[in-house]
Each structure stands twice: as C-alpha cells, then as structure tokens.
C-alpha cells in the first residue's frame, strides 16, 4: 500500500513537472486517427479537417495568444494500437484532450484509457450506440446513427416502402450498431423486415446474400457498413438484376463521395441521412468548403467537416476553461454553444450532440449526392 502511494506520488510529480514547464508554450492536443491500412481514408480526411481548423484557431491562439499544438497518432484501425496511441499522447505528450479515434470499435478500446486518466476524449466520427456511456470524460460531436436513420427511413416510407431487407457488416462495431438502429427504426416505422443478411467489412463478394434478398423482392434494402463494402453490394446487386424499383437506404457509412467514385451509376437512387452536406448553402459551410479545397485539392467529406467543427469546439472550450487543464476543459466542453458547418451545436448532459436540426436526406444521382427530392 505504502509502495503504491509512493509510486503514485512519484508518477504525479513526474506528470506535473512538464505541465508546469509548458505553462506558456503551446497547448498540447492529441488525435488518434486511422492514417494507414484499408480504412485510412477516414483518418486522413479527419486529419485534414482538424489541421484546417487548427490554422484558423492558431491565427489568434487560445489563453491569450498560446498556440495549440496537435499531435496526430496513427491507430491503423487497430484497437490495441489505438490504446497505445492514447497512452502515448497522455503519458509522453501530456495532451490536455484527445480527438478521435476514428472508429467506434477503437473508441470502445481507447475511450476507457483516457477516461481513467481523466483526459477528455472527443469522437468526431464515432456514431455507434453506447460511446458516451464509457465515462464522464468521453464526448462525441458526431450525431449518433440513432438520430439520423429514423429521418432517412421516414423519407423512404413516404415514398411507399413497406418491406425492407437489411444487410450489414457483422465484424465492425460501427456497422453492427448502425444495423441495430436501422432494425429498431424500421420496426418503429412499421416496415416489414423480410431478411437480415450479414457480411464481413473486408469482403468483396456479396453474391450469395444478394441472390437471397433478390428472391424476396423487398421494396427497399437497408445497408449498414462502411463505404467500400456498400459500393461492392450496390455494384453486385445491379449485376444480379436488382433494378431501380428497389430503393437502397444507407447508414452513415454510405455517406461518402467515394460511393459515387466506386459504384458510379449503380449507386443511383440510394438515400442516406447526413448531419452535413458539402452543398449546404450557408456562408460558414461555403467558406469551409472553399478553404478546404484550396488547401487539400479536393472537396471535404463529412468526416473532415465533423473534425473541423470539433477542433473549433475544443479550442473554444480551452479558451473558456482559462487554463490548459483537462478537468476544466471537460467542464467547459459541457457549456459549448457553437455554430459551425454542421449547424447549431450543444452537448446533451450525456455528452452527445443535442440537436438533429442539421440532418439532410441525400440521394445519389449520376455518381454524386444531392439533396433528395421529396
């Protein structure tokens, strides 16, 4: 017991010294994102969004002119690596808060680490159920799918959909939780679920599942998965003869411009609810899109937009906290009142986003998303 106390005291003094030394240097903020591996597209988009916001924040600085220094660690989409990255950011880089990780899977692993060390961790793209239940230091700025999917399904129902088949990737927390949400929302909307089919998130062949669904002739097919398998499902569905009379409804993962790039015309007609849309016609959003394009040479996606807002939200919280102190920043985050590219933003007491006002239902047409016709 004595030994443990001594150790704890030693650890505390070790931890305190660099923090003291940095009192006038930059405020250290960390991010854990997927920068390599098959899902790196998400992490790199997020990093681009964070860096753009960071430039804007650092023009003025926070806490009377201190800059924010961002360290982005690669999780490679791997839970263990996400945990190590969070430990490294907290222990070595002494960050006051962490943004990320990219996938809900990784948040379930790294979130408890940050929570235990009392460092706020803010997911910008983690939409699975239960994320903020991890603990009082876990936040997210991404609307959970449970808020977005009912809006999308209501639109499908308005178009005359009565029966639906559901397909999802069963090896990924994000896709599975999106499926649970979709199933619950479909039941609540009074749709008949005719089939439930799963696949692996890295599969490329979906012919067996599609053939089975084809035989049941549902009005709609709901898919909860990341954009790569969704594209594969759509391409193969068209090859196997599922035509435009069947409405495809996507979860959050389908909400990426890559869907049009990979699936092309096969994706036409797919409906997806989005907390953000590149073509959203408000000045804050248009300014963001223009700046992002100028800096990165391509249009931002939802993940970049969410990250951009999150960095601004965090910077404002650090400013309000009045010190580079994790505990004060956590309290300040809860007081957030921000209006960014996603629309008006506040946190619920449970540290989730409070408003679904910003949700737009989009439809694929000619390889591009547009606001869905009624």
């Amino acid at each position, binding site marked *: 017991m004595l030994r443990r106390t001594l150790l704890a005291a030693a650890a505390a003094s070790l931890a305190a010294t660099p923090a003291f030394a940095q009192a006038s240097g930059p405020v250290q903020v960390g991010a854990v994102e997927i920068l*390599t*591996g*098959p*899902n*790196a*597209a998400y992490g*790199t988009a997020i990093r681009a969004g964070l860096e753009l916001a960071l430039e804007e924040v650092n023009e003025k600085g926070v806490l009377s002119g201190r800059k924010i220094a961002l360290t982005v660690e690669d999780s490679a989409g791997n839970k263990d690596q996400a945990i190590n990255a969070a430990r490294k950011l907290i222990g070595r880089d002494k960050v006051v808060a962490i943004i990320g990780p990219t996938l809900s899977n990784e948040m379930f692993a790294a979130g408890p680490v940050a929570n235990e060390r009392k460092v706020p961790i803010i997911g910008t793209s983690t939409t699975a159920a239960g994320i903020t239940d991890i603990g009082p230091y876990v936040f997210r700025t991404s609307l959970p799918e449970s808020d977005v999917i009912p809006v999308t399904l209501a639109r499908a129902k308005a178009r005359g959909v009565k029966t639906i088949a559901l397909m999802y990737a*069963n090896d990924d927390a994000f896709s599975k939780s999106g499926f649970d949400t979709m199933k619950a929302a479909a039941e609540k909307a009074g749709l008949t679920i005719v089939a439930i*089919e*799963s*696949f*692996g998130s*890295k599969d*490329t*062949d979906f*012919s*067996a*599942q599609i*053939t*089975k669904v084809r*035989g049941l002739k549902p009005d709609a097919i709901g898919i909860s998965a990341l954009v*790569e398998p969704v*594209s*594969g499902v759509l*391409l193969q569905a*068209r*090859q*196997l*003869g599922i035509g435009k009379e069947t409405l495809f409804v996507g979860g959050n993962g389908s909400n990426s411009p*890559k869907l049009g790039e*990979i*699936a*092309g015309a*096969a994706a036409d007609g797919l409906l997806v609810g989005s907390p953000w849309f590149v073509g959203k016609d408000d000045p804050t959003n248009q300014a963001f899109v223009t700046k992002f394009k100028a800096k990165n040479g391509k249009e931002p996606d939802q993940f970049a937009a969410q990250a951009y807002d999150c960095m601004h939200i965090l910077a404002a919280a650090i400013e309000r906290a009045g010190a580079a102190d994790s505990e004060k920043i956590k309290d300040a985050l809860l007081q957030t009142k921000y209006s960014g590219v996603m629309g008006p933003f506040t946190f619920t007491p449970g540290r989730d986003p409070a408003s679904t006002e910003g949700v737009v239902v989009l439809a694929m047409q000619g390889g591009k998303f547009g606001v869905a016709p009624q």
Partner: protein
Amino acid sequence: MLAQQLVNGVLLGATYALFALGFTLMFGVLRVINLTYGFYFSAGALVALWLARSLGWPVWAALPAAAVASGVLAVVLDWVLLTRLRRIQAPELSSLMVTLGGVLALYSALTSWLGPDIRRLPPEAISAEAFQVGDIRITAAQLLILAATAVLVGGLLLLMRGTRLGLAIRAMAEKPDAAQLMGINTGQAAALVSFISGCLAGAGGVLIGLNFNAIHPYMGEQMMLRGFVVIIVGGLGDIRGALLAGLALGVIEVLTAGFVSSSLKEAVAFLILVAVLWTRPSGLFGRAVMRRA
C-alpha cells in the same frame, strides 16, 4: 435461386483458385513460406490500373503487361529477401519472418505512396451488363475469370508435366541437391518459378480487381487467408488440388450464406478445413505432395 447460388459459388471459388495458383507453385516448389505473394497480386492490379487510367491502355493489353511487371517484381524481391537465407540454409521460420516483415513494409510504403483509397478500373474497361440465361445472371468479367482460371490451370499442368523445364522444376521440388547434381541450374529454375508465380498473382489481381471493383494496396493481404486455406487443403504445390479446393471453398461459403446464415459462412468453411486436415493432413490428394507440382 439454387442455380444462381451455385454459379455464385463457382465464380467465387474460381477467384480463390486463381489467387492460389501462383501461391501453391511458389510454396510447393521453392519450399518457402513466402508471405510477399499477396503483394504481387496488389501490384498487378495497381499497375494495370495505372496503365488503363493514365496511359489509356485497353484491358487486354494492360493485363499481360501488369502480369509481367509483377513477375519481375517477384524475382527481384525473392532475390533481395531470401538469397542470403537460402545460402545459409536458414530454418523455415526465418524466411517466414523475413517475408512477413518485408511484405508489411511494402504494403505500408505502397499505401503512403498511393493512398489507401479503393479504386476501380475505368467502367468502360469491361461491360458491366450481365448475360441472362433463364434465372441466372453472369457478367463478362466473371466469364473472363472462369476462362482465365481454366486456361492458366491447363497451361501450368502442361508446363509441369509436358516440358523439360517442368521436369527440372519438379526435380527441384523433390530434391534440390540431387537436381543440382544432375546438372539443373536450380538458381535459374527458382528465379523462373518466382517469375511465373508473380505473373499469376499479377494476372489474378487484375482480373479479380476487374470483377470486384475494389483495387487498393491491401487487396492481396485480404486474399491471403483464403489463399492459405486453398493451398493447404489442395496440397502444397498441387495445381489441380488448388483448383478443386478453391472451387469447393467458394461453393461452400456461398451455399452456407444463401441457405443457412450469412454470418456462419466463414465458420462453416473453416470448420470443413479443420475436418479435412484431420483426416488428410497433407491435403485433399495427400500423397507426397511435392511430386505433384
């Protein structure tokens, strides 16, 4: 529905077999657990993508060029990674680790160079329209995979059984030292086997990329697990075995997904693998395997 599911299964199985052909050759003849194989598959697809997208080559020209490029890459990497280990006759685990390290470095380098995005060959490269026969639909890319698998299996068997070169390779597979004493240039033959394996991997990458529209640096890595199953169940170095094991795996996966439950397809397929290996530890045709190359 059963007919379409069987077609789906055979097509999926053909992609597994196509992937595994070069792998089983490399494994069976060179007796090296070479994990770089998946990389040649990715490389072939990416080279073809570049030729088709940037230089506007048609697929029929990009396919052989990409295959040859992958073959050359295989020879070079084999030489760089394994020459020293062969000379000192290092244990198999060393070559396993060296190729594992090598291939991870290669995948990372390729990803940081090209980005992780999924790409596809230009849609006009091959018609996406499906042919319909009764209730069964099949696309041109799928027919191409079936044809290519058949031609490559036939060609390989002919090479191995009907030519002096094949004889030399089989001799080497059986007893490298004896083969060398009989005047076979084993170094040259090994390089040739690497080249052929690389070509097969590259061609497989192009065709499978064309069918699934999902070309990215890690695509080979994702095929490796199935590749291992196919070459182990089929018997190391056994080309006919790889074909049959690939087809069986594809059909079993699809039928399980179609008629039992899609979440069980891997479980069933891999349980069958375990059962096969319990009863026939050296593969379906489990005789002295090397001899069958």
